[in-house]
């Protein structure tokens, strides 16, 4: 017998509600897609300062982001689903961040980690962008200066919730287009 068969602690994601019978299961496509997406989010870390260090701890063995299906950190925006912005974004870096966001394929989500990324933080000054939501839309904000890894994980779980519940039509909707237009995208 192979050792894997002795591993009884395997945890499976619960199946969505649906009609079940002998040899078939019927559920809505949306739920299946949501389930698949939310348990395999590929994050793209955009770390510029101390929040980035907290993120490293979050990724490492102790806090282990892989528990939530995100061990595969990508450094190519085209492959990734979630842009994690961690740290102070100066005005000069604003266009770079925006470019990275634009290069990501839909559907894409943004997690803003830490006081600086959310609002400029203590850097109430001429050179610092007062929150990344000035240039790109943000889905979840994680407060803290810097937030502890638990807080980052909590923000990540909030993102998972959003991803799992998102309607498949959302990104074709009028409201979403309006949001994009308000940021001057497309």
């Amino acid at each position, binding site marked *: 017998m192979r050792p894997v068969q002795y591993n009884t602690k395997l945890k499976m994601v619960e199946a969505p509600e649906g009609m079940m019978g002998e040899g078939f299961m019927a559920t809505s496509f949306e739920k299946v897609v949501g389930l698949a997406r939310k348990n395999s989010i590929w994050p793209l870390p955009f770390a510029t300062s101390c929040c980035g260090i907290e993120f490293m701890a979050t990724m490492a063995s102790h806090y282990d982001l892989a528990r939530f299906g995100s061990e595969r950190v990508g450094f190519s925006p085209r492959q990734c689903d979630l842009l994690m912005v961690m740290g102070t974004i100066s*005005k*000069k870096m604003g266009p770079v961040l925006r470019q990275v966001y634009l290069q990501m394929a839909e559907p894409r989500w943004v997690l803003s980690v830490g006081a600086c990324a*959310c*609002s*400029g933080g203590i850097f*109430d*000054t*001429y*050179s610092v*962008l*007062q*929150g990344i939501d*000035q240039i790109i839309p943000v889905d979840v904000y994680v407060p803290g200066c810097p937030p502890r890894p638990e807080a980052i994980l909590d923000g990540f779980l909030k993102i998972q919730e959003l991803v799992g519940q998102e309607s498949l039509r959302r990104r074709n909707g009028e409201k979403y287009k309006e949001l994009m237009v308000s940021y001057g995208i497309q």
Partner: protein
Amino acid sequence: MPLNNEIIKQKLTDKFGDQLTDWQEPYCMLTFTAPKNLNLKVLQFLFDDPELKFRFLTDLQAVHYPDRKGEELVVVYHLHNLVDNIRIRFKVFTDIKTPDVYSATALYQSANFMERETYDFFGVNFTGHPNLIRILNVDEMDYFPMRKEFPLEDQTRTDKDDEMFGRS
């Protein structure tokens, strides 16, 4: 006899007479002021003189004194003699309405970026600089942020989200 502050001062006064003023030695570092049209001549002399040999420009920056009418901006040069390990500093004052100072780029390559930075933050116009554009701030910036008339925290700024700071 090793080079010291007195010899440097003597050599400079022999060459430039009483045009150099305000001699000080804070923390044993010789400091003086030169008229702004003389800055390149002083730098060249300090560079070329076989004894002085100040051939390393450690730093170059500006200070804004809004209360000194007619000489609001001062450009400060920090020079280092690497042979005798002696540092000096000299200042050039200029009116903020005509902030033109000769560029030291022909003498020191390192002055290129430092003059760009000084231009970026204080608006000192270094005449003769090959590429005097902003280096650290965004290109669209239309003011010089380190001048004292611009407060660090501008409460009227439009991109400031007061709600985030509990002061709506």
